[in-house]
Each structure stands twice: as structure tokens, then as C-alpha cells.
């Protein structure tokens, strides 16, 4: 426990100092990575832990984004109101639409979320374009902060707080019961636990985080459109980030998000659009097949060895 807190503190400190060493261009990449980390963590707390794979996170993120976009654009609601409202609607809407499926089986849940995402993608392009902006979406939305550095700190701060919160929750009994649901839900019921209640809680946490991420992301970009919200590619990116990083760990998705974002940045000049997804997909399949615990397991192995070395050196009275 102490070791972990120390690691978090080091991570936090390093990231806070980052702007001193990097250009604004790189900072903007980090901003994107932070948001992707938020989305990937929101996916993990539900799907990684309970095994109820959600293909509908873009739907949840999109509700948040569109709610705050439409409120600020059409009614001039100030950000400190529109953002919490957006998060609230995400949680309500998400629960309303997904709970009937959540109560039943993981496979039904996966299918229903996929269906929702797809239908919403088409729907948002045609319904009330005057409100939603149709295919092009809405732009020129108010920004929370201007400039790379303040946005960087915002994105990092939010990501860090969410990460710590979720991490603490999953290290408690909650993590145990949720992962038990993934392993064998029937047995969890036979242990006297109401799995529907637990799944709902995990879902609401997930929706909360997704909502916060979606609303803030929209006011970082200043625009929103069906293409960048309800797209299969967006879903795919979140999924891959969580999977490559390591499901069921909260830390894994952060690692995965950073890895994927920087891979994307590095490859951008060399590899055109469609090849990228091909590449991600192949990497994801390989990781899934051969290293299902993802980057996180590598990270853990590394810190374990480091920890052992430090302990050994202390025992022999040497300094590292």
C-alpha cells in the first residue's frame, strides 16, 4: 500500500513539472492522452471489472458532450452549471437505457450498448439539426481555459483525481466483488450478494467518469460532432487503450492511453489513416492473445523487481 502511494506521488509530481521540460505541442498530446485515460478508466471500472463489456461508452460520452454543448450554445448556460448538468444527464440517461440489459447477461448488455451507439450515430446526424448541428455538429463552444498549459493542468488534475478515487475503490472490497462477478456471477449471488445492485453501482461510476470526461473534453476542443463522438473508431480507441494497458487495474488504462496516444503521434507522419486502425487492431489482438494482462503486468513486474532491489540493498546497509 505504501509503495503504491509513493508511486502515485512520484507520478503526480513528475507530471506537474512536465510543462517545464516540454513544448506546447507535446503538451497537447499529453492533454489528449489524459482525456483518453479518463475514458479508458471509465470503461475499465465497468467492463474490466464486471466483465460486462460496454460498446456504448461513446454513447455516454456523447450525451455529456452534446448536453453541455447544446446548453451553452442555445441557452447560454454558464459552464459551471452546464457541465454538472451534462454529467447528471449522462448518469440518468445511461442508467435508463442500459440498466434493463445490465440486469440480465453480459452478452445482452454488450449487444444493446453496441446497438445504441450505432443508432445514436445515425440519429444525431438527422434529428433536429438546428439543435444538434446535424452531421457537422456544433462548434465555437465556450472554452474552459485557453492555452496548452492551463488545459494540461486541468486534464491532468481531473485524470489524477479520478484515477486515485477509482484506484482506492477497487483496492477495497468493491474490487473483489466486481471481479468476482466477472469470474462467476451465479456464485456471487450464492454468496448472498445482490449483483444487480453492484453492477448498477459500477455502471454509475463508469457513467460519472465518462460524463465528466465528455463534458470537459467538449469544452477543451470547443466543438462536437457525431463523427468524433459516436464513431466506432472512437470506441475502438478507448477499448484498445484499456486492453493494451491491462484490464481490471485502473492503472493499466492510463498506461494504455499514454502508449496509444504517443504511438499515434509518432506514426502519424508515416502511416495514413486506415493503416492505423489496422495496426492498432493487430497489436490489440496480439496483446490479447499473448499478454492478456497488458502493459500493467509489465509495469508491475518492473516495480516489483525495483522494490526487491531496494529492500535487499537496505538489508545490507548499502545505498542504491
Amino acid at each position, binding site marked *: 500500500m505504501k509503495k503504491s502511494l509513493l508511486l502515485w506521488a512520484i507520478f503526480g509530481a513528475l507530471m506537474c513539472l512536465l510543462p517545464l521540460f516540454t513544448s506546447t505541442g507535446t503538451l497537447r498530446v499529453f492533454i489528449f492522452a489524459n482525456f483518453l485515460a479518463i475514458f479508458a478508466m471509465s470503461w475499465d471500472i465497468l467492463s474490466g471489472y464486471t466483465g460486462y463489456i460496454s460498446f456504448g461508452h461513446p454513447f455516454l460520452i456523447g450525451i455529456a458532450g452534446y448536453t453541455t454543448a447544446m446548453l451553452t450554445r442555445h441557452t447560454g448556460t454558464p459552464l459551471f452549471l452546464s457541465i454538472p448538468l451534462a454529467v447528471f444527464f449522462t448518469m440518468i440517461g445511461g442508467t435508463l437505457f442500459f440498466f434493463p440489459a445490465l440486469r440480465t447477461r453480459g452478452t445482452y448488455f454488450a449487444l444493446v450498448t453496441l446497438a445504441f451507439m450505432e443508432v445514436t450515430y445515425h440519429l444525431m446526424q438527422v434529428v433536429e439539426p438546428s439543435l444538434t448541428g446535424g452531421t457537422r455538429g456544433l462548434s465555437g463552444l465556450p472554452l474552459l481555459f485557453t492555452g496548452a498549459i492551463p488545459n494540461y493542468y486541468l486534464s491532468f488534475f481531473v485524470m489524477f483525481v479520478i484515477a486515485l478515487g477509482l484506484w482506492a*475503490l477497487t*483496492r*477495497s*472490497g*468493491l474490487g*473483489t*466483488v466486481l*471481479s*468476482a462477478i466477472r*469470474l*462467476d456471477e*451465479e*456464485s*456471487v*449471488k*450464492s*454468496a*448472498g*450478494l*445482490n*449483483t444487480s*445492485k*453492484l453492477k448498477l*453501482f459500477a455502471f454509475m461510476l463508469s457513467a460519472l467518469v465518462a460524463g465528466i470526461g465528455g463534458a470537459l473534453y467538449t469544452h477543451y476542443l470547443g466543438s462536437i460532432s457525431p463523427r468524433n463522438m459516436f464513431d466506432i473508431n472512437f470506441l475502438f480507441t478507448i477499448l484498445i487503450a484499456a486492453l493494451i494497458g491491462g484490464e481490471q487495474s485502473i492503472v493499466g488504462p492510463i498506461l494504455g492511453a499514454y502508449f496509444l496516444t504517443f504511438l499515434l503521434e509518432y506514426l502519424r507522419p508515416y502511416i495514413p489513416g486506415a493503416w492505423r486502425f489496422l495496426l492498432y487492431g493487430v497489436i490489440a489482438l496480439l496483446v490479447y492473445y499473448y499478454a492478456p494482462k497488458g502493459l500493467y503486468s509489465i509495469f508491475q513486474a518492473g516495480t516489483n523487481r525495483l522494490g526487491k532491489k531496494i529492500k535487499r540493498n537496505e538489508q545490507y546497509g548499502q545505498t542504491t
Partner: protein
Amino acid sequence: MAKLLDVQSLTKKFGGLFAVYDLSFHVDEGESLGLIGPNGSGKTTTFNLIMKELKQDEGEIYFKGKEISKYPTHERVKMGISRTNQIPRPFSEMSVSKNIRVGIMPDELMRIISMNSQSDAERKIGKSVGFKEHALAMYPRELSMGDLRRLELARALATNPKLLLLDEVFAGLTVGEIAELTELLKEKKEEGLTFIIVSHDLRSLATLVDRVVVVSFGRLIAEGSFKEVIADEKVQEAYLGKQHSQI
């Protein structure tokens, strides 16, 4: 003696076949009941129905005097019924200790979150079924069948049951393991636990049970003390005389 469990006219059909038909029996508090019968006679189905893993087509189930048919599985467990599985199904990616922990967890979110490790309670339960200290950190794939059955029992006991449904606890165990488990169950019986045991090992069953109920093709065919039931012609016929040599 109050009736702890009272099953009345339970019926369950699968496709065209009656797995359980018009089955009625009861268990008194503190009693241990044997539920025996040839393969496929509906014993596991009966347990599934009592636990709400399946829903009955007809019939009522009374627990502590209350009709419980509308309650889902986890509620029945909270009321005090627990079971072990015929084929052990532990949580494969969790240690013995953590497996037991899931059983101990209360069904309240705030308490689940504030609960981190329950090592004392887990250790106590683990030891009470015969696990040594070092075994608590082992994983199901490393355990022998005897230990897996112990784990099933530990998980069932973790929920603090009044009524324990034991499905084939002795299958696949060595003679030594059977003796140990029998001793353990006798201890629990003395502590006041009520149970229903399903087993093909009639010899081991004989020493544990107060009364026996026999089913065949889902129907009750005999009821009484172990001796009475074994001597019953209908029972012998149902087993086709195969079990004679066991006694």
C-alpha cells in the same frame, strides 16, 4: 421442533420431462437430512429450486415459516440458506482466502467499500474446515479435490447459514479425506447447523443423518430413518440392487 425448511408439492419440468414431481418433505431445526436416490433423480434440481437458481413450475417452499418463492437467490442466502456445488466452482483467479472473503461480504455497498481485507474472519473459517495457514494463499488450480470440497464448504459457511445444502460432498475424495470431512460435519451439527446432504456414498451418509428422504425420477418414494429406508423394497428396486454391497 420447528420446521426450518418445508417443501410442498414441488414440480419442475424440462421440456417434456419432469425433473421433480410433486415433491414434499421438510427438515426440522438442528436435524440432518439425507437426500438420496439414483442418478438423475432430481436431487441437484431440488437444491437449485430451493436456492432459486431455478424457478419451480408448481409448489411452495417455506423457510422459517415464510414462503420464499418470490425471493431471489441472494435474498435466500441472506435469510440463512447456503449450498455447496456438486462440481466445485471456486473463483479461479482468487486465492482460497479471497474466495472465502466473497462469502463473508455483507450485501451493503458502504460496508463492502470500507472492507478491505478480512484476514481474521477468513482465517477462522478456513481453519474451521481444515485449511492450514499456508494453504489460504493458494489458488484453486493448485488444490486437490479434497481441498476444493473444503473450499466449497468454507464459502458456504462464510455466509453464516442456518440451513446448509451439501451436494455430493464426498465424491472424489480419498477414504482419509472422507473421514475428516465427516468429523467436521458432525462438529457443525453439534454446533446447531441444520443440513441436507446429497450423496451416493451411503456408508458415510449413514453416520451423519437423522432421517433420509429417497427420490427416484423426481418423485418421493420413501422416507424414514436410514435403516428403514435401506430396507424398503421400493428403494432397493430404484437402485436396482447396485448399492446393496455398500452396506
